[in-house]
């Protein structure tokens, strides 16, 4: 009796709980099927390429796959002296060079070594051409072809490249150089990556702040104006947003260059003398101005969407309770816009960090960002180094995202 009361059943006698679970399961499966295309799309176009990129940054078998004899020798003699490798090592190298010549893999192997020891490609090509005709003792014979085959840095580089998995590209991306004595910090005139990382983040932060300061009043105006006027203003915000990036960048060049509209106007009005024209383009100023303009809508739109739904009665209530307008703004209005500020800042900052074409066109000498170097290595076929720099950028952004989550809370994000 007690049992019958506890277990509710459906009309056909199945337990209600199981029937419900089955029905819900069907709905869940259907829902899952609906999002499946999106999941697959994200997986194929986003996660797989990122995984591939991360893989690429630690894996390169260009040398390991084409120099089996040396790979074996390095395996057996992990503690060899790079300053003075023995005859067997040179014999293995000559054997591999001859093999590379036959299998046409000299370029691939040389390229891999060239990443850490510049000059290796032509050395490998030269060595490979001669390898078949060399007689023992191989050490003397190979050194006669090119004395650089005895360089300790080369042997260190080859030993490291004999393993397809390597952290080398991360070392290079943090300004380390392979020297005869091992990996060391690059000279003053060679260090560039960490500096550019720092600069990229600084400029992005600066642009985010400027965007916020400019966007806040505009978004507020948009949110409080009557609908018809707000629509007009909105079009003014969106119009540049819809215009091609290149067109907007070029427009800024026309405006700001030394012989440009703004300078001509100032000179024409007698405010500037012809010799004292302002340099506002092809430097940091140009980069910041053009990027701020391009990214501004990404700040305005989230702010607007948040501000639109803030009831004006809160501010009125604060004023009627005696708060000054500053206090009202600071304690009542501003906290309510935080989700919009957070979303806009995050969007603008992350977009700015990866910006490429604008700094390339208007950056000049000091407006280069880290993305320009990623592009350089992509086009010069060092994809592994490009991937390592990109992975570092990704890691830095994820860390910032995490800090942001701790400080602001990601659940408070509102994109509109």
């Amino acid at each position, binding site marked *: 009796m007690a049992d019958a009361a506890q277990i509710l059943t459906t009309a056909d006698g199945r337990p209600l709980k199981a029937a419900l679970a089955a029905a819900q399961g069907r709905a869940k499966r259907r829902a899952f099927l609906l999002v499946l295309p999106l999941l697959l799309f994200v997986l194929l176009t986003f996660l797989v390429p990122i995984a591939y990129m991360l893989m690429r940054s630690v894996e390169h078998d260009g040398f390991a796959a084409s120099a089996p004899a040396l790979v074996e020798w390095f395996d057996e003699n992990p503690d060899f002296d790079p300053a003075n490798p023995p005859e067997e090592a040179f014999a293995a190298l000559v054997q591999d060079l001859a093999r590379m010549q036959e299998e*046409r*893999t*000299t*370029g*691939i192997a*040389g*390229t891999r070594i*060239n*990443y850490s020891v*510049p*000059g*290796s*490609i*032509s050395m490998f*090509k030269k060595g490979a051409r001669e390898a078949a005709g060399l007689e023992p003792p191989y050490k003397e014979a190979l050194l006669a072809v090119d004395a650089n085959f005895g360089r300790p840095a080369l042997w260190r580089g080859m030993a490291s490249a004999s393993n397809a998995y390597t952290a080398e590209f991360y070392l290079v991306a943090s300004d380390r150089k392979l020297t005869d004595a091992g990996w060391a910090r690059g000279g003053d*005139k*060679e*260090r*560039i990556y960490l*500096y*550019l990382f720092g*600069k990229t983040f600084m400029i992005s932060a600066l642009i985010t702040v400027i965007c916020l300061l400019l966007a806040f009043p505009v978004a507020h105006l948009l949110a409080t104006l009557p609908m018809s006027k707000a629509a007009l203003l909105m079009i003014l915000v969106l119009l540049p947003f819809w215009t091609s990036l290149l067109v907007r960048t070029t427009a800024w060049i026309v405006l700001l*260059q*030394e*012989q*440009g509209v703004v300078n001509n106007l100032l000179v024409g009005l007698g405010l500037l003398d012809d010799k004292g024209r302002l340099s506002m383009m*092809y430097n940091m100023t140009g980069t910041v101005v053009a990027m701020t303009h391009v990214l501004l809508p990404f700040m305005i739109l989230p702010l607007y969407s948040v501000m639109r739904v803030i009831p004006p009665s809160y501010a009125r209530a604060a004023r009627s309770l005696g708060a000054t307008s500053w206090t009202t703004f600071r304690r009542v209005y501003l906290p309510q816009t935080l989700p919009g500020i957070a979303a806009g800042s995050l969007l603008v900052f992350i977009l700015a960090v990866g910006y490429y074409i604008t700094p*390339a*066109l208007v*950056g*000049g*000498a*000091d407006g*280069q960002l880290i993305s320009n*170097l990623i592009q*350089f*290595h*992509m*086009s*010069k*076929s*060092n994809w592994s*180094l490009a991937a390592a720099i990109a992975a570092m950028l990704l890691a830095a952004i994820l860390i910032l995202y995490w800090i942001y989550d701790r400080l602001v809370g990601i659940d408070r994000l509102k994109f509109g």
Partner: protein
Amino acid sequence: MKKTLILTTALVGLGFAANADVTVMSWGGAYGEAQTEAFVKPFMAETGIKTIMVDSDNPATPVKAMVESGNVTVDVANIEYADAIRLCDEGILEPIDASTLPAGADGTPAIDDFLPGAITECGVSTDIWSNVFAYDNTKFPEGPTTVADFFDLEKFPGKRGLKKGAKAVLEFALMGDGVPASEVYDVLSTPEGVERAFAKLDTIKKDVVWWEAGSQAPQLLADGEVVMTTAYNGRIFAAAQNEGKPFQIVWDGHIYENEMFVIPKGAPNMEQAMEFIRFATSTEGLRASAQQISYGPARKSSMAEEIIYKDGKTVMAPHLPTAPENMANALETSADFWVDHDSELNERFQAWLAQ
């Protein structure tokens, strides 16, 4: 549903195959147009093989990506000389048998007809272009005449435009410092030589406007942002010829190189691709290209008769990097040097810029 999917995929695939028998990837812009006029249209007219031209910022990058991912959609690509060597070394390109290239119009075998270095293992030259410097002759009627003048801020005051990159800029600086063209790469191969090049650049660093895209150089000159700039010679020629800009090219110390047609490994239409290359790099093909844009043909036989620009009156010879009078003090880019040192020197260059 699945069937339709397979069917549509197959149709799309067929569609592509039927749409173009040969897909050529080049740089777009005035250069791409010139190649369409000189190579693609006549080739289609003569052989009936459907050929299309697609553009890229630098075809070497997508070609490598395509071959590595095993999805090659391009049959012929137009890439820089150093890239033609590098990608060939990396096994990305198909070797080209030079003996199948057509003999010159005068019967000279192709191998002797092409200028030295114009045929490599995987590539055939389409033209020879050059890094020159040019000035606005309304500003300097007497004009700078040597590379040294480019670095002389006292004699020729005003801003300079330079390409933002190590390649061709370091060589240019060394020649400006008095290194003869024949010794430039020997000097640049030593650490002291690199120092010397950067020291020379230091003397004008504060007056340099750096450009990145080829079209920026003539634009900077036209806007009066710079009084002289390095540029690709074809761009200056086009601005002076077609738009009547008062630009004058200085040929002293120009740095030239071949541009190459290559076939990516696994190209879908290898046979037709090779036929296209044979057609385009024939005596007449290269001549036709030089009638469209001021880049020199790499075959001696193409220059046997006077080449007239497409406007019907301008004689091209004095505007081509390969003209004997322009070759008095000229440097051929060393692909070997840059394949070895591009990354290293570019890092150094970027660090120098940021200082």
